[in-house]
């Protein structure tokens, strides 16, 4: 066998996928190349903590190439486009890279410019995002200097990475302003395009309850058409307005820009349509996608990428061996939701089962949909597991790819 597997993107999916695949064949049989435009691997869950001084940017970034096992080639160069007809990746340095299997793992990018006014006057002064390193660091300084007023947290539209992060931001802001003794001077409002606090009914109700307990006002079905930084207001397409002194905005997301330059590869937003159970591209059998880059109906989250990893690796192997693919990815997602004061909730769900109360992974595990100190410790501990177990492609004890049903309380049991 003399094959080449190319990963576009050296983040969570590209790294764990390449590392797991590397074990399957000797280097002389299968070449594995990971391409990325930069060498900064960001532990993205850490971005949430930066504005509150609970993490520093340098702690959450490591070199991408250090996370890749021996025998994997790392190329730091932007992708110009993919020609799916000739199985070729064209790179911006003018070189071409042929592939037998292509894995699109280039995540999602923020497209701030798609929202009128967002990057206009006031951007990075009173309008921020914590969804990238520069924004999270700048927001830290702005929060430090904030002595009171109206703070809004706004999601422009779905899909976004980690749909619970904006809620966590609200909960942590409540905690942060209490610590500083100025909570009574701060009006906190969460402004969402959804019809509730979250996308799934049981969790949405529970999270809306928590918002109320913490004094966070909820504005729903608000489709942000314009961010007016100098006037300090969000304007919805239907004419509604929300005033602010400080806005934390989660911008629109899209797939990596080269996807749009690659006819047949992606959808209107630049995500790659794949079979939701096998992760194989609907347009080309030798293309797969993992993580945020994949257009599948589940959250864009690291846990999803992690759980997809097993199916992806197995299917790349099967494709090269000419075997039928494994259609076992079930949409499993698992998210710790930081609620402040050293506590967190945990939610666990898949394509068919919404987040339910109970325990994870079994009836004696971590409490689900309920605040606990244990979940907070779990969230903190995860950062170490991420670098040392998840990225190298080790199995996490007790954490399987498929969603565990035992431990969950279904409607009848509640």
């Amino acid at each position, binding site marked *: 066998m003399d094959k080449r597997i190319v990963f576009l993107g050296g983040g969570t999916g590209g790294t764990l996928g390449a590392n797991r695949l590397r074990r399957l064949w000797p280097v002389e049989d299968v070449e594995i190349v990971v391409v990325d435009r930069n060498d900064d691997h960001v532990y993205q869950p850490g971005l949430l903590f930066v504005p509150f001084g609970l993490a520093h940017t340098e702690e959450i970034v490591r070199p991408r190439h250090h996370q890749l096992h021996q025998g994997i080639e790392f190329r730091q160069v932007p992708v110009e486009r993919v020609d799916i007809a000739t199985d070729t990746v064209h790179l911006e340095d003018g070189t071409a890279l042929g592939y037998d299997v292509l894995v699109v793992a280039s995540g999602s990018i923020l497209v701030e410019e798609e929202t009128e006014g967002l990057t206009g006057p006031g951007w990075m002064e009173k309008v921020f995002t914590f969804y990238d390193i520069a924004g999270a660091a700048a927001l830290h300084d702005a929060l430090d200097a904030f002595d009171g007023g109206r703070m809004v947290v706004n999601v422009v*539209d*779905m899909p976004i990475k980690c749909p619970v992060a904006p809620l966590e931001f609200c909960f942590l802001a409540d905690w942060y302003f209490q610590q500083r003794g100025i909570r009574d001077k701060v009006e906190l409002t969460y402004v969402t*395009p959804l019809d509730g606090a979250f*996308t799934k009914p049981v969790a949405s109700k529970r999270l809306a309850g928590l918002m109320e307990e913490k004094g966070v006002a909820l504005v729903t079905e608000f489709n942000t058409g314009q961010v007016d930084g100098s006037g300090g207001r969000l304007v919805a397409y239907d004419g509604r307005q929300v005033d602010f002194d400080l806005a934390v905005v989660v911008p629109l997301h899209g797939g990596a820009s080269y996807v749009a330059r690659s006819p047949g590869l992606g959808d209107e937003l630049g995500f790659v349509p794949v079979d939701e159970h096998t992760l194989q591209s609907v347009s080309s059998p030798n293309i797969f996608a993992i993580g945020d880059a994949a257009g599948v109906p589940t959250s864009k989250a690291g846990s999803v990428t992690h759980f997809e990893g097993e199916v992806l690796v197995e299917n790349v192997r099967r494709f090269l061996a000419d075997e039928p693919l494994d259609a076992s990815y079930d949409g499993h997602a698992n998210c710790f939701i930081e609620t402040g004061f050293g506590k967190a909730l945990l939610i666990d769900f898949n394509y068919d089962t919404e987040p339910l109360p109970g325990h994870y992974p079994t009836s004696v595990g971590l409490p689900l949909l309920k605040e606990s100190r244990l979940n907070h410790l779990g969230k903190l501990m995860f950062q170490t597991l991420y670098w040392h177990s998840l990225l190298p492609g080790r199995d996490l004890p007790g954490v399987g790819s498929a969603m565990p049903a035992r431990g969950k309380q279904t409607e009848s049991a509640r």
Partner: protein
Amino acid sequence: MPTATYAGKAVTVNDEGFFEDPSQWTEAMAPEIARAEGIEELTEPQWQVIKFMRAEYAEKGTGPTVRVLGKTSGVSVKELYQLFPKGPAKVAAKIAGIPKPRGCI
């Protein structure tokens, strides 16, 4: 499962009034559904969006979100809100007899 009657025919809808089975829909039902959504008479541009929604659903199995509509229908998001002030994707999907767009996960 609740039912609704449009153009003299009973159809299955969900709790929010979205069609469960898009094949039960006929063009004759659209004006009636629209009136229930506060649109007295469907204009040509509104019809254009409704037909686009149905075509997208037939091809992809899910209706487009507002953002995707703005990129693909030839009508900008701003104009879409002028046509369907209560939310283009949801209202147009309901009038077009397709399930609620599942873009929001």
